[in-house]
């Protein structure tokens, strides 16, 4: 009887230690998850900002201004444009 009790006590101690370590591990993983989620949010924010920046740089009026002003480009005359019929070219 005493032997069984001792064995059970041992099992109990092992279980208790297991619980403590697993709890600790869970907490650590959780904080890692939190950090990862926070980073994901930051990336989200940055993505939004970059999108905003991209659309600001890509404004059609701005592109046109740069193309005609800085690069000296102009819209081609319809006579200078050849329209190729893809189906007919095959």
């Amino acid at each position, binding site marked *: 009887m005493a032997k069984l009790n001792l064995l059970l006590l041992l099992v109990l101690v092992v279980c208790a230690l297991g619980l403590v370590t697993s709890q600790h591990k*869970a*907490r650590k993983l*959780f*904080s890692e998850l*939190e950090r990862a989620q926070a980073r994901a949010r930051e990336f*989200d*924010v940055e993505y*939004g*900002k970059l*999108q*905003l920046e*991209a*659309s*600001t740089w*890509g*404004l*059609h*009026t701005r592109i046109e201004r740069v193309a005609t002003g800085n690069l000296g480009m102009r*819209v081609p*005359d*319809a*006579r200078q*444009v050849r*329209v190729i*019929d893809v189906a007919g070219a095959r």
Partner: protein
Amino acid sequence: MSAAAPALVRLPVWRARFVMAGLVAAFAVLAGRSLYLQAMQTEFLQEKGEQRYSRVLQVPGTRGRILDRNGEALAISTPVQSVWAIPGDVEASAAQLGRLAALLGTDVRELRRKLADRARDFVYLKRQIAPETAEKVARLGLNGILQHREFRRYYPGGEVTAHLVGFTGVDETGQEGLELAYEKSLGGTPGSRRVIKDRRGHVVEDVGSVQPAQDGHDLVLSIDGKIQSLAYAALKNAVAAHKAKAGALVAIDVRTGEVLALANAPSFNPNNRARLAGGQLRNRALTDEFEPGSTLKPFTVALALESGQLSPGSAVHIGSGGLRIANYTIHDPHPQTVLSVAQVIQKSSNVGAARIALAMRREDMWSMFHRAGFGVSPGLDFPGESAGKLRAADSWRPIEQATMAYGHGISVSLLQLARAYTMFARDGELVPATLLKAGVPAAGTRVLSARTARQVRAMLELAVQPGGTAPRARIMGWRVAGKTGTAHKQENGGYSTEKYIASFVGLAPVSEPRLVVAVMIDEPADGQYFGGVVAAPVFAEVMRGALRALGVPYDAPLEPVPLPDAGDEAREST
């Protein structure tokens, strides 16, 4: 002397019993108390305990973006910080307050005034500042000055798409335009989670169920950013050049019914709405109704052709003294006394259109206008979209039937007008218009026979040839067809003699129509007011750019289109 043996003193039994009873009673009290706490008060106590370490966090949901058909952003939400204070907790020196005011861009006195009421728990110092500025504020390290995250809506398209997209209020709910119309699907729902926090404020664990935040859905519009910005620029220039009060433009893809461009001038910057007047906010193309004038003549003529009463070559007697109905005379400035039906459209003859209309039953005319979508809501779900005005046929007097033939006594919105012209572009089918990207051809409703639609299209092409009312609508490379309108504005129950609405509705390429573009210029004030002079050039510019952007093959010889001399085009009188 003998040593006294220790005497065995018998204590009275009641003393032991007394102590025993005391102990039992004490235990009973303890047991009772613990029973009371555990069983009866447990919820209250647990709640109190959790309050020490658990918190409910709000998880904000992001509002959906609004994109054009090519995925370019027209409205995006980005996080910003709002700075607030607990006035009672603020301890700051004058220098610190000065630095804070400088960062927030506010006046120091204003800041002091806000912080003066120390009884309040919450006061906003500045809402929606850039994250970088917010960080600098945080680095000041002032007690009682706190921040929280909010979202702010940005509109990269600015004034170009302002009327269509609309805008949200400071709390990110739609107030105008599509932001309001699609509030339900755009708006996110915030979620919440209950967490355990440690002493330093770090989240340690989730407890209970987590309610995830629902992000709003993106809204993809039918608008093509390139055509839209071209349309807005052309319209803005025309409104400025002709000193007009306002202008609007609608471009519809004939195959799908998608609205590729919808522009209004004057516009506003939705990112900075400090000075806004009501007139700037109106989406005229959708919410304003106006008497369209001659742009309705093709519908009158189409009805006459459809009923078989007339053919394009039939002669219409115009006469020289105008057409007298009751005590009203309809005039024409053209010298011809006889015109063919095709010429009535080409030269935009009021008398001719009125005579054609008077030969028909008013119920048939009503039915034609009704099936063209006039007087019926276009069903775009846009806030405040106009259905126009089309009175019941049995209330028309003969003079009204005659004037309606050339677009007076009936009101339409510009979008309705553009959509109605799709029936000439699609060989008789009217296509339902949409502001959302469809991408697939839409089924139309047949209003006219293909033959009639083609005949009217040929007449509309005559109208942009030399001798028509709008030679300025032509473009090199593509065949164009369209109709001008020059309508007197209604004023105080009558018609103004000086104020006009100039309009042009047209389609191209004629051989296989792809686009309908409608332009309206309100009150041009530089002396020019004919639709063919004021509105047609805007049409030509937008149509040329749009056809090129869409890669539509040429269907006309590549010869430069000569511009007519000023005032050379046929005049119209309405």
